[in-house]
């Protein structure tokens, strides 16, 4: 399993001008394995952090280590990082450009210089993971629905078989069913490919259901890093930061006020129902 280590990273936009913004401060993180969620309010530094992972942004100070090697030491490592950490931007369907779905998904692996057979194999596998149906492969991506376009864009990145699949708000703007569909696909991809997944999102409900580890950012710093249970049990702090917690977490604290304590680590409806059930059996 690959590992990305951020060591004492700082990032400053427009350094030395009146518009200077210190976007990241003294970040130390080790990323790798599982599905990692990154949350934080707008302007907390999430997007800058994500751009560091594949060399789109160069730290103002500190190091980005990919399997122990400093990314910025040699130029070829930066190029390699673009393929090793595949970035799916927000609303990636706006970046589709090819005349067919197949060509669009094939763009990344072709750029990697793979053989035609290997490109074909990767395209089909990626389409399967992203739940792009084989019958649309020869159609124009612009004729598809919003949810389908999103999945084609996702397949285009998966086709590069990145060791890290990094997604910025992968489910934004989709209806609840499509959200479950695309996030379920990502979870399955994680399981079958063994590659790490990093999701940036505002949706606490989604994060709670799909992530193994959550990193909370505020004002350019990492202020929480732990399991869903650990992070959501600090719901008051999260709300203080302008973040939301899942509604069911609010319900659990309201229940505690009524004398029904089902724990502070409640963040999915299923878990809450289970805890309520065992609470009632004990009582």
């Amino acid at each position: 399993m690959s590992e990305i280590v951020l060591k004492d990273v700082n990032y400053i936009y427009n350094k030395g001008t009146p518009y200077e913004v210190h976007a990241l401060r003294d970040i130390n993180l080790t990323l790798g394995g599982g599905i990692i969620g990154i949350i934080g309010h707008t302007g907390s530094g999430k997007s800058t952090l994500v751009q560091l992972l594949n060399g789109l942004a160069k730290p103002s100070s500190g190091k980005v280590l990919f399997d122990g090697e400093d990314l910025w030491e040699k130029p070829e490592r930066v190029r390699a990082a673009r393929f090793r950490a595949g970035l799916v931007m927000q609303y990636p369907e706006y970046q589709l450009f090819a005349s067919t779905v197949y060509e669009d998904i094939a763009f990344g692996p072709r750029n990697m210089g793979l053989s035609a057979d290997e490109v074909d194999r990767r395209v089909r596998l990626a389409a399967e993971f992203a739940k792009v149906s084989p019958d649309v492969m020869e159609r124009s991506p612009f004729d598809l629905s919003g949810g389908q376009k999103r999945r084609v864009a996702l397949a285009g990145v998966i086709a590069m078989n990145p060791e890290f699949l990094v997604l910025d708000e992968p489910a934004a703007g989709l209806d609840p069913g499509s959200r479950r569909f695309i996030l379920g696909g990502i979870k399955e991809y994680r399981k079958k490919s063994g590659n790490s997944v990093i999701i940036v999102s505002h949706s606490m409900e989604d994060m709670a259901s799909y992530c193994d580890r959550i990193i909370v950012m505020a004002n350019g710093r990492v202020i929480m890093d732990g399991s869903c249970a650990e992070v959501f049990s600090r719901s008051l702090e999260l709300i203080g930061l302008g973040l939301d917690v899942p509604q069911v977490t609010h319900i659990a604290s309201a229940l505690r006020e009524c004398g029904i304590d089902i724990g502070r680590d409640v963040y999915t409806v299923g878990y809450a129902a289970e805890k309520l059930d065992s609470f009632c059996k004990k009582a």
Partner: protein
Amino acid sequence: MKNAIEVKDLSFTYEGYGDSPDVTALRDVSFTVPEGSFTAILGHNGSGKSTLASILCMLEEPGSGEVIIYGKRMTGEDVTDEDIFEARRRVGMVFQNPDNQIVATVVEEDVAFGCENLGIPSAEIRKRVDAALDTVGMRKYARHSPHKLSGGQKQRVAIAGVIAMKRDCIIFDESTAMLDPLGRRDVMETIEKLNHEDGVTVILITHYMEEASRADKIIVLDGGRVLTEGTPAEVFSDPEKLWEASLDVPQSTELLYRMKKAGYDVRLDIFDAEGCAAEISRAIEKRRGKRV
């Protein structure tokens, strides 16, 4: 009560081009929107929500059926351009992407843009712009550049532009979809304030069930048809039906639904955390009481 909008058996088809077939976006849709009410429209992607919104503000011509806007029929041969302009003067729209609806380089000029197009005298525009910026809480940004604002702030500027034109009915087409939780909260508060205090008729298209639960009435579209409509309490009382339509219910309702299935006597139509907790605690007490 008078109706702002009446829709009867409305169908709409996008004509195909080349090899692509026709796509029917709406089929026999009927509903009414009373003046001053707050209506939410739910539906999966591609269910016809945005087509409906475009028709209601006369950006798209209605297909077959009847659309009546503030008492004026907008369908049939005898509809004049003047009728269409009049309908557009009464029904405004705020779109999803804040970056797609800002046109000026200064906030107050952006808010004034629509009024200028209507040929309103400039002294009157000044008054309306200031009042609209107050309503959305953006007065202190009047001289700022819109592109440096957050998404939620940009949406509030866009809303101010519609308010300044004094629209009686505003359609919000997923206007909160691209915002972070804080931006969403601010925009929702602004929408509710417009509805409660200024009597603006609100139609909110959304994927957020919590937002829909605050409406007077919810209309659920599925495959271009009205799947169900009613108060939030009525619509969310059947979670299975919504899940099948690729939708969801608020987490409070889902938790209560699970409790009900486990044999507890609970209501499902509670959408706030405190109310939900109180209902669960009541049901647990009741069951304990029985055992004793």
